[in-house]
């Protein structure tokens, strides 16, 4: 029994490593801001946070991810300076909302030298 469990663990580790390296082996092109082209870390924390807020049921489903992004922006439209964003800026607006809400896992995406987030928000401070 122990031998079978050890085999399963080793096989799981090897397959996981292969999957990680496959993502590193990607060479691809896409429009800037496309969901497929997001850094894996950003894609991961975004999806986890959207899932936490119940906007997303299934991780790594691009169609659902796209809908979740749009739904989140719509629900937070009162805080935003614009209702509609170009496709290229939707993810950035969501990241800025997450930063403003205080979710620290997004802090590394904030640039103090260039406060790009301020252009997404109305002048009134966040009440939440």
């Amino acid at each position, binding site marked *: 029994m122990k031998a079978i469990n050890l*085999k399963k663990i080793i096989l799981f580790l090897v397959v996981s490593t292969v999957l990680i390296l496959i993502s590193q*082996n990607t*060479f691809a092109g896409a429009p*800037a801001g496309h969901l*497929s082209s997001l850094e894996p870390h*950003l894609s991961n924390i975004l999806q986890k946070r959207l899932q936490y807020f119940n906007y997303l049921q299934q991780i790594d489903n691009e169609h659902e991810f796209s809908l979740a992004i749009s739904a989140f922006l719509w629900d937070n439209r009162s805080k935003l300076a614009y209702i509609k964003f*170009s496709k290229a800026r939707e993810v950035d607006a969501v990241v800025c909302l997450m930063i403003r809400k205080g979710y620290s896992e997004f802090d590394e995406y904030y640039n103090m030298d*260039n406060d790009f987030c301020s252009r997404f928000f109305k002048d009134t401070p966040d009440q939440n």
Partner: protein
Amino acid sequence: MSNRQFIILVIVLLFGLNLNSPAECEPFRLLVTKFAGPAPVSHRAHTTVYFEMIKAFKSIDNPDKGAWILYGMENLEQQNHDAALLAAGWPSVRADLAIWGQVHIYDDGVVVQLYLTLTPLIKKRRIRPELWHLNFNDGNVPLRLELDIPGKFYQFEPFLLPDKIILAFENPQQGIEIYSKRQGGQVIGTIGEVMRFYEIHENSILLNSDGVKGWVRIKPILQRQSEAIDFSKGVVRLLRGDWRGSRRSFNNVLNYPNLPQHLRTHALIYIGLAKEKAGKTGLNEFKQAYSINPLNKVAAAYLLMGRVSKILRLKKTSSQKQLQNARYDLQKTLSATRFLFEQEDPWIAKLKPLL
């Protein structure tokens, strides 16, 4: 499954991993922003340059791995490096390099003015092949000399893109055809939003887009047309640790007539750096770069570093005379360049044990 079968499976998987793993490589992101200028010509030139830059990821006839090349969909807020940094710095983009520029209509083509911006994200990568460091001892104290690449922003000479080379598409998703074969064959689809590249050649790319796998045919931008394209490719290859590829690109740059001095200096430095990284001496190139402008601190630093590298190589041989000569050369270069560095420069202080 028996134990023996299991072990064979693991070995095969791990062997496969080693064959396919990129050596010393980390996901790299290049942004080609939307070009300023009259539409639709500027959009078509943008698409043309975008596909030309894909070839920068060609590594000794095999496509590179772990890279995204992003097609900018929005104009820069302003035509300057700060705006390019902003465009590359969006969370959804996070590009290491940005290529941007302007397009002007000309008689039988367009004139393209290109710029290259290296973003601060380059310094945040875990693996940085372009960093050059040399380790040695001062007695029992280990010392490390390190040099980072010299440039952050580059402006290139404008170049002409003839009409016949410009792709007739305002963006890659506008209907660029995918063929079943590299030559001949039939059209089996068009490029969608995301492209995954498998093979890169000078005039064709094998890719998969929206489930359609086939060939896209690209007319190459003529070699003598622009040092911007070769220089940008060289920087991409250098940052990816493709030493042979970067040397090839920067050697092409040096062949351009009327090449601005700062580009010539940096191209020589990058060639020397690529040679050193590949285990050869880049001293000749560093000397040439320094001779262009002896007041250039960066060129002086690379020349000093090249001399240190030579000393460390000679220490491994038994030629004491050559080692003595190399030390003397280092002393002489340091004397000639000392005024370029600050009095208490810690980098210079590390050279003393080698003199």
